[in-house]
């Protein structure tokens, strides 16, 4: 996917990012870069600041200090529309009560591309229908968004972001509350889009198998970055997540020609944490 020799300029670059609410510091000196085409996973325990970090990246929160740049430009110097044309976001929030159809929700992806009085053209409709087909929901097209299942809703939101035509797709825990089958399906769908992806994950095994690179944050600080093989270690799992676990190679590693770490957790934390270690 990436050329091994030439180092490409990063698509998204975060430097010395700090963000706080009142006197509480949420994010501290975060710095990383994402190269075009990478699939990057963001990991961290609850309350570590994953969502806060992503919010700073999709312009919902303005960082206190530090800079986020997209393709070499500070994202706060771009107009909201311009940024939305290049970066799309899939969140947990879903509309309710107002019977928008699946088609309507997906077509909202056109919003940043359309001037005020322009109508939806035939070509636009084609793009919308294609995106719906790509996520496999063509037969639900006219159905109301509310009546879809959790997995279908998330896929519909991905279709919306396909219509948005982004270079970078940001996803904030898109797979929580989903059955394992849909978790895998959704992530493989995101991977198949051939755009750069930054997603936060709950399931460490899923992250390890899907991502080219992982970022781990703990209490608002970036504590580890690298390939899954470098990042997913028994020491990291105990330091950051406070669990005892064994890391081995996933059986599919050889077939896929890359090392996929597999985590096996140990149990028995009630009787003192030492017991958990075999």
């Amino acid at each position, binding site marked *: 996917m990436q050329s091994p020799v030439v180092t490409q300029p990063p698509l998204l670059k975060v430097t010395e990012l700090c963000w706080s609410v009142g006197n509480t510091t949420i994010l501290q000196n975060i710095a990383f870069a994402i190269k075009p085409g990478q699939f990057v996973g963001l990991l961290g325990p609850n309350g570590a600041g994953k969502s806060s970090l992503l919010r700073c990246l999709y312009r919902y929160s303005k960082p206190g200090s530090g800079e986020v740049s997209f393709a070499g430009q500070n994202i706060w110097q771009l107009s909201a529309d311009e940024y939305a044309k290049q970066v*799309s976001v899939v969140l947990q929030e879903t509309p309710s009560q107002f019977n928008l159809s699946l088609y309507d929700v997906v*077509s909202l992806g056109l919003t940043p591309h359309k001037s005020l009085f322009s109508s939806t053209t035939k070509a636009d409709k084609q793009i919308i229908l294609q995106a719906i087909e790509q996520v496999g929901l063509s037969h639900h097209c006219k159905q109301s968004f509310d009546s879809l299942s959790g997995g279908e809703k998330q896929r519909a939101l991905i279709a919306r972001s396909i219509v948005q035509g982004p270079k970078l797709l*940001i996803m904030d825990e898109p797979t929580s509350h989903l059955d394992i089958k849909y978790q895998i399906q959704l992530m493989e769908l995101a991977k198949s889009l051939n755009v750069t992806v930054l997603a936060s994950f709950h399931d460490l095994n899923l992250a390890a198998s899907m991502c080219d690179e992982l970022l781990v944050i703990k209490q608002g600080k970036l504590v580890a970055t690298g390939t899954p093989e470098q990042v997913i270690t028994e020491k990291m799992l105990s330091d950051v997540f406070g669990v005892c676990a064994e890391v081995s190679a996933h059986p599919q590693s050889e077939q896929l020609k890359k090392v996929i770490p597999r985590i096996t957790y140990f149990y028995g934390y009630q009787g003192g944490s030492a017991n958990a270690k075999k």
Partner: protein
Amino acid sequence: MQKNNYAAVIVTLFFGFTSIFIALSFGAAPSKFIDVYHSLIGQGHDPFIERIIWQLRMPRTLLAFLAGSGLAIAGLILQTVTRNPLADPYLFGISSGASFGVVCFMTITGISAGISMSAAAFVGSLFTMLLLVFIAGRASRGQVETMLLAGVALSFLFSAFTSLLLYFSDPQAITAILFWTLGSFARAQWATLWLPALVILSCTAIMMSFRRQLNAMLLGDESAVTLGIPVQRFRLLMLILSSLITAVLVAMCGGIGFVGLMIPHIVRFFVSQGTPSGLMMTALAGGIFMVWVDVLSRILLTNQELPIGVITSAIGSIFFLSLLYFRKRES
């Protein structure tokens, strides 16, 4: 899918014209459809009937239609930007502001009739709207909650002032104020019709041009931001649009409850508001509904007019109760 929607809009439009036509033939003076037809094409046989139809019923029916569409659109806008199905054009205290303006005006000047009353109502509701925009504009997070709570608080505040002033003023003022709480189209005339027409048409046009942004607000504030929408400013703009519509209508025909709340919900049963035709249907349905309510108000009692607000509130409450009943049976 799209073609069906446009067909539905055309059918509704046709139904709207027919409703206005039929409405013109109802009233205290006896007239037939054929009289209406003749008056409309300028060949009326009876100049008396022709004058009634052109000078009294026509502006009145048109104002009813405008009021219905305006309130439905204002309700739709507010329900969408607050993501609250119970939002209503009067929820934010605009009609209490109007009543307060009228009562203040009457207490200070002693005048209790004429166009200056409408002007006082307009000033009162604009004042409420500015206060609300000021409060909502200062809120950085949780703007929706601030808007809703501040609106309800303002509404109670102005009602309290109104009651206080009424308590010390003469009984005649109380009858006059009833007009602003119950609504009526009796004051409709050609000379003043341009104002609501202009405000409602332009606000609706602006709303239609922002329809994608408006619907994107339903996805939630964060998602709307990621679609490139300046959420806080956009919500204020929409609040101003719907308040302007409501303020003009309150000044012209008083407070007419339930229409702004109910019509968007009824239309949503059939068409999604995600399409331009869904928005047009909301405006048309509101207009048609109000034309018929006005007809009812004129014919239910002989030689007497029922206040519009009484009929819409009665129909509205029955509608909501039956909705609750059927929803319960469904689940």
